[in-house]
């Protein structure tokens, strides 16, 4: 069956040449794809940037928050204002959580935590449909119409910042209108929700020439609601913003820096000089 091999005087025949060229080409294409192409580590940082432009008005800004645990009195106003404005009726689904805590030295304090808006967000990298992404201005946002509700982002988030809408929005919102009125649509059953740093206020405010962190209309509800100024918000790229000034004046830390998630929420320790 096998045809007798024709002895070739050439070192390379046409077939071998094509094979080697093909293999080299494939290898080159593969390296391109993983070093500079769509699978590169550069590209994983820009997930969603092309498909969801959003937030152009605040491109060139980096929104950050400082939570001063030494100032916080544990009144929970930030938690309730968030629930009213973002229409989170169910207490188990709070985007912004608060609970009593104690330092190693035995001093009691109140711990609150919104979504930390990680620059290296684990939740963003894992979403199978690209329904969540890091905007140019650093906000981690969601497309509720695209989410399939697989909850992989919840599994990936080390900070427990995401909430799944298990049962729809049957209960009435007890925090409206005392703590604010709904400014965004409530989410349908079956998708994952999260804190957005009140992105709707930031985008609308920027369009009106307001400064988030300074002008109340453009500032997250939790920051406005705080009676003791324990939450500070603003543009980290502007040295005169409230957040930059607060960070310059206080020693801050971020939650579990060892995860490498680069959160955008900074904390001031509850103990003076601690």
């Amino acid at each position: 069956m096998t045809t007798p091999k024709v002895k070739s005087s050439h070192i390379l025949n046409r077939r071998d040449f094509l094979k080697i060229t093909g293999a080299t080409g494939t290898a080159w294409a593969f390296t391109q794809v993983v070093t500079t192409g769509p699978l590169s580590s550069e590209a994983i940082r820009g997930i969603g940037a092309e498909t969801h432009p959003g937030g152009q008005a605040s491109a060139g800004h980096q929104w950050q928050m400082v939570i001063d645990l030494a100032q916080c009195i544990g009144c929970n106003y930030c938690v309730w204002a968030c629930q009213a404005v973002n229409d989170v009726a169910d207490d188990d689904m709070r985007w912004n959580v608060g609970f009593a805590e104690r330092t190693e030295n035995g001093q009691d304090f109140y711990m609150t935590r919104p979504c930390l808006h990680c620059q290296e967000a684990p939740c963003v990298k894992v979403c199978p449909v690209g329904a969540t992404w890091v905007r140019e201005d650093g906000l981690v946002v969601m497309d509720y119409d695209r989410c399939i509700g697989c909850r992989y982002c919840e599994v990936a988030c080390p900070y427990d910042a995401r909430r799944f809408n298990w049962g729809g929005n049957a209960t009435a919102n007890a925090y409206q209108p005392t703590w604010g009125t709904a400014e965004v649509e409530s989410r349908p059953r079956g998708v994952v929700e999260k804190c957005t740093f009140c992105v709707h206020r930031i985008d609308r405010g920027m369009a009106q020439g307001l400064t988030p962190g300074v002008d109340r209309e453009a500032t997250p509800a939790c920051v406005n609601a705080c009676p003791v100024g324990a939450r500070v918000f603003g543009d980290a790229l502007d040295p005169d913003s409230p957040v930059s000034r607060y960070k310059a004046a206080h020693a801050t830390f971020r939650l579990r820096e060892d995860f490498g998630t680069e959160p955008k929420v900074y904390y001031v320790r509850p103990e003076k000089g601690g």
Partner: protein
Amino acid sequence: MATVQMVARRRLAHPLAWWLALLLAMIAAGLVGGVYTLLHGLQVTGLNDRVPWGLWITHDLSAIALGAGAFTFSAAVYLFRIKRLEPLTRAAVLVGFLGYTSAMLALFLDIGRPDRFWHPLVYWNVHSVLWEITLCVILYSTVLVLEVLPMVFDSRFFDHRPRLREFGHRLHRLTPILAVVGMGLSLLHQSSLGATYGVLSGRAIWFKPSLPIMFILSAVMGGVGLTLLATILTGKLRRQQLVPRDVQLQVARFVGYAALAYLYIKLWDWAATSYYSHAPGTADALTRLQATTPYTLTFWWWEIVLGLLIPAGVLLYRPLRHNDRAVLMALGLLIFGVIVNRWNTTLSGLIAPPDWSPGVLGGVVLASYTPTWVEIAVSVGILGYALLAFTLAVKYLRIYGPSHPEHA
């Protein structure tokens, strides 16, 4: 001779009817649970924001892993040309098809928006291992359908449909190509299922490169094991040897060696992540798991001893390998071990989440999870579907015996 067969058949008629009735009852329970879930959403499950994945994900991971016999046998027969394994290929493809369809049924109910199940096809996030898994599973299920169709068209129901049968034969000629494509897709997604947990840098107990390797090794072991178990069991019920004895022994020995290989990686994984390391994340998580769950029991006794050491011993010790009952028991334990492993892997990272509070009270609520009756009913129903489909397939299709008498 004929009378003996008649008597045997009449005796068998009753158990088979009971068996089918049981399976239909299981499927009915699953339908009730499934409809209930679609109507009321995932609030009817025991899942919560700290443990958002549970029984259905375990079912899905186990079904895909135990379906891996399909690609292993196809690759062995059509790629490496180990022709003597051919008698098991169609059984393996059937088991694989049932595993993947089971997984897709479980996933369909497990996502919050089943109406958007098609989104991964349209909206791509090429960086997500889950996106890659979704595409691979869909493509590979297509391969499995193409491999199963010729068997269906060869059954007597299609005696009067010569064109469909001819189409089936043409498809069957593509089998070597399908085997290559299938192996590529399977190697990708079987390991990525482990990577689903392995790439999560925020969850120390999962974040390790060994997970994808352990997942694919255990899948090959469990997938081949389940194919062999189903074959021997079917043979016992029919009182005949469905595949040549030497092939059965050889495959049993292969599963034994695969178990050893898996055990070897598991040993070093444990040594590196638990025994020699006291890295805060992993150590904390393990301490919490051991304090609040029967993790030590399920890991050491169920996964390692019952699921690997005993089966490997039986399958590799010659006298026991020749004893069908011992082999059946060993394979059953092995499959049990794979399922326990998928459960342990999923739940370990969720039950013991990382502590992010700067305080010492650890305001993080301890997570817990118990499946509800809805979840159990749906899982039972999906299992019933797989068992019913297998029963009917071996009864009405030519799963065992020569593939195409006309070609032979």
